[in-house]
């Protein structure tokens, strides 16, 4: 039995607290799984070898936190919920995997305490109060704590320089934290495979790596090709596409504005019929439509076994995005209407929401942007996908 003894043995120690935590964060059905593997058969995305979500379900049921944190598969899942629809036990693997992802975001977070704060409902007010106070301080210190007179121009309230002195360093810091999180995750993936003896030891040079593994993933994301394979929840594809391209559009607009401001010294507001403004408004509209659709879908009949259950992390992100979108649109409407007394506070609220959305990105559900992309690259890299 040489082959037998060569098999590595993993000591497992179920973590009861972890099971409780998973159940609390949206995976309350996880113990209903009886390992029939209908889910893995139903899943349009699972690879042929060691398909998810069957194995993730037993790891979750056994409270094997480490196995799940170092698992790329939970991120390959796009939560179409075909699995939940066909689950004979109502174990809702789709929701359990979402809960596992929440846990993975928290587990890989850097610094850890931020991950914990963002994940806990009770800290929600704090998340908004801290930046709000910060902004008020800046306004009061710079003497802008008033409604500027004359035509509504937002830079009168908060000159671009002030905005950027806060936003840009924060952005860099968050980018660094996000990078640390991603690297934590990548390392845990590599380590887990090393333990199983399936690690890839040859790392290709970076350009090759980008070409072979990153670009195809970017292409997959841009086309939403994996999302499209979902059976039972096709409307989520459209909704997510709206949000995704809304953000892409606004990202382009933001960069154009930055470049315009610092290099060409062209200041906002831009012409309403100019290409930048058109793109901005178009993006805002599809973002609004996309978010509305997602919220509507999540509010739809909870008894539908194929519908996603929604946890705190789902709702908090959605409402923040919605708030960003609505305050942005209203800011513009109010500005054009010339109602300064409403327009400036609205703009303030908009900035606050945008700030929160991005500052908490590595810790909120939005972190799927980082981890799912990483997992997809890893899957390509290891030939899993």
């Amino acid at each position, binding site marked *: 039995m040489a082959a*037998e003894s060569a*098999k*590595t*043995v*993993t*000591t*497992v*120690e*179920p973590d*009861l607290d972890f*099971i*409780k935590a998973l*159940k609390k964060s949206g995976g309350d059905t996880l*113990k*209903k799984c*009886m*390992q029939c593997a209908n889910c893995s058969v139903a899943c349009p995305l699972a690879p042929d070898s*060691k398909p998810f979500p069957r*194995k993730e379900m*037993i*790891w979750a*049921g*056994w*409270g*094997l936190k480490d196995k799940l944190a170092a698992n790329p598969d939970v991120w390959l899942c796009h939560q179409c919920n075909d699995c939940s629809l066909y689950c004979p*036990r109502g174990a809702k693997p789709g929701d359990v995997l979402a809960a596992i992802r929440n846990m993975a975001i928290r587990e890989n977070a850097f610094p850890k305490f931020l991950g914990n704060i963002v994940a806990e409902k009770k800290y929600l007010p704090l998340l908004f109060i801290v930046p709000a106070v910060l902004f008020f301080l800046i306004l009061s210190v710079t003497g802008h704590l008033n409604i500027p007179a004359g035509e509504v121009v937002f830079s009168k309230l908060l000159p671009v320089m002030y905005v950027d002195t806060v936003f840009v360093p924060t952005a860099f810091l968050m980018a660094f934290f996000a990078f640390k999180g991603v690297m934590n995750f990548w390392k845990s993936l590599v380590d887990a495979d090393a333990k*199983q003896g399936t690690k890839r030891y040859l790392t290709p040079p970076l350009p090759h790596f980008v070409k072979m593994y990153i670009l195809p993933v970017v292409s997959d994301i841009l086309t939403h090709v994996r999302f499209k394979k979902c059976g039972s929840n096709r409307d989520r594809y459209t909704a997510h596409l709206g949000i995704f391209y809304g953000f892409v559009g606004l990202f382009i607009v933001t960069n154009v504005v930055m470049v315009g401001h610092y290099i060409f010294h062209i200041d906002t507001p831009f012409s309403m019929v100019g290409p930048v403004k058109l793109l901005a408004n178009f993006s805002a509209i599809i973002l609004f439509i996309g978010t509305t659709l997602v919220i509507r879908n999540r509010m739809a009949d909870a008894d539908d076994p194929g519908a996603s259950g929604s946890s705190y992390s789902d709702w908090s992100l959605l409402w923040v995005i919605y708030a960003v979108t609505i305050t942005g649109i209203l800011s513009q409407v109010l500005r054009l209407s010339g109602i300064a007394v409403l327009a400036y506070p609205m703009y303030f609220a908009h900035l606050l929401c945008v700030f929160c959305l991005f500052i908490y990105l590595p810790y909120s559900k939005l972190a799927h942007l980082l981890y799912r992309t990483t997992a997809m690259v890893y899957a390509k890299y290891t030939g899993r996908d």
Partner: protein
Amino acid sequence: MDKKYGVYICTGCGIGDALDIERLSKLPQKEYNVEICKTHGFCCGPEGVDLIKKDIEGEGVNAIIVAGCSPRVNQDVFDFGSDKIVERVNLREQVVWCHDLAPVEAGEDAEASEAESALKEGVNLHTQFIAEDYLRMGIVKAQKSELPEPYLLETVSKKILVMGGGISGLTAAIEAANTGYEVTLVEKESSLGGYAAKLRKQIPMSNPFTDLQAPIIQEKIKAVESHPKIEIKTNTVVARIAGEPGDFTVTLKAPGETIEFDVPQLVTQTHDEEGKELTKEQTDELYNELNKGRADILTFDPNGEKFGAVILATGWKPYDASEFENLGFGKYQNVITNVMMEELAANGRITRPSDGKEAKSVVFIQNPNGDDDSDFPFASSVTSLVALKQAKYVREDSSDAKAYVIYQHMRTPGLYENFYKSMQQDDGIFLTKGKVSSITEEGDGSLAVEVDDNLLGEKIRINVDMAVLATGMVPTTKDDAIVNLAYRQGPGFRDIGQFDGYADSNFICFPYETQRTGIYAAGCVRQTLTMADCVEDATGAALKAIQCVESVNRGVAVHPRSGDLTYPDFFFQRCTQCKRCTEECPFGALDDDEKGTPKPNPARCRRCGTCMGACPERIINFADYSIDMIGSMIKAIEGPTEDDYDPVPLRVIVLVGENDAYPAIDMAGMNRLKYSPYVRFIPVRCLGSVNTVWIKDALSSGLDGILLLGCQFGDDYQCHFVKGSELCDRRMENVAETLKSLALEPERVELKQVSITDYDKIPEIINKFVEAIDEVGPNPFKGF
């Protein structure tokens, strides 16, 4: 009995259109001198029945032959009282519904076509022949039938003996006593309750089947103790049960005592040291030596108590786990069995045997580390459920405890699925299919358990305080007779290679009925069962025991031929003491004396006729089923001769088992499946009752082949009489030898197994056999 015959031919259901009824109705008078033969378009209707009743009253008809539908239907309609003989000729299902009705084409068979011209227009010649043969056989059968008289015992005891004071025994006692019967309950331990009294909690017994429940045994014990009709005898076992149902003489004794009326044991040795087969004398000597000081089975204990029926509820004992040293049992103190675990749990918090430390993590192992995935011997759904239950105990004791269940098979049938779900959903119960590949002890007495081929996708090690082996529940009848019957065939149930020591008689059809009439098994001695199932089982067995005493009281068979008044009648003057009947009786009904003369115990008998089939002297017969009757029916078949036809059409008889094959043939008819017209069916009670002389009768009267249709044998045999068709198959091997010596082809006799559901295969079986006989050619004895 002076018989006055009346033949009534029904022309309904298509019979009248398909046959030349006029010619058929002349047959009784012409061939059998039976004057009364009437036809009616609707015999089973009020008018038809009146027609018969009028003849019974007016003409004194007392042997009624109804030619129409199958004897399996309208039995109540054609019941004219126990003082009449009624024979049914199956013209519908087995003639007109399954054979060609159109006339033979002239071009096809000119001779037959010409012969047909004598018949009513449009009638098929062969079909008419079948109907005529069946009518002949029906009349002959009525001629050979006698009115049965019940076998009545001088005195009948209706007292019921319940063996075993566990959940099943207690329930059976209560149920029987509540119905009004006197019950004596014997228990070998000093207190009642059995294993059911040694539990912490029970697997749920009622809806929604999700949570453990408090044991119910104390209520049962109280009910039994306070019941005026139940006598309790603890510290008591059965030394022997002699006699027959309704009149059992039972000797009770204290466990371990040696008394004169201890039951004689059988000699198991068959060969001497040199490997030579023991002679009869040597065996007898060994028997006498073995049973020195014990009264012979035919000597009844004068102080014995009388009982009518026995409920055997002696339950189970734990499987000896010492062979599982590979799993650490016997080597590590913290590896225990499920029975030991239950004891620990019943005594309070679960602690490790090694140091009394609380067991916070426990693994439940459901299968030995063998080469295959088989479970522990005698494991079952109950051991699966118990593992789940005990896992819950661990969790009840401490909220941070962990219980692992490693299984190859998790069996939670029926609504126990709810229990499985409920246990599975406990946060601290971890289930996986898997194989325990090793258990090693750590320094502090805890165990490292390695589990391979599991659902987690890699070989895992779990560290636990304790391991529990789900060893099986062995029926008490496995190695011990327990019932201690003073029967010639031995004190226990014969091992027929089907039940692994469980006291059962049929793999599916007859729960409670053992291979011994009057002994009804309930609970875990019969099959491993949960408490809820034991309660149900015991209730069933109690009803069966009541059915038994009441049937014996009326002198009728208990089962499966419930109500049958006939029983085997021995013509002892011609008995050669060959003992075949005693040995072959599937139910041990016969006890031969020293000389070997059988002593029939009709109340033990199930009326299968296996003795009749076994007897070389043909001295065993029933009132309405005899060697002579079937032989005469065979001879009544009109074999066509060369004078009439060339080539002569074949004639094949089919001896058909009544329980499976006969209904299957009826169903083939109902489905209008057609088959060869050259066969004639004769129902038999069981192929075990087929006497080889009938084969001789058939061949000597010029019939070309004999097909025997019996029940399935093998693991899922369907026989009502243990192994009748298999026994017949063995006898036919001898027949084949005899045929060869007579220069007859052994292919002329064949046995086929038919399940009741095999109706669609009937035409193929029959046609193939007829084709085979056609190839062999006609019987050379034809016309002699």
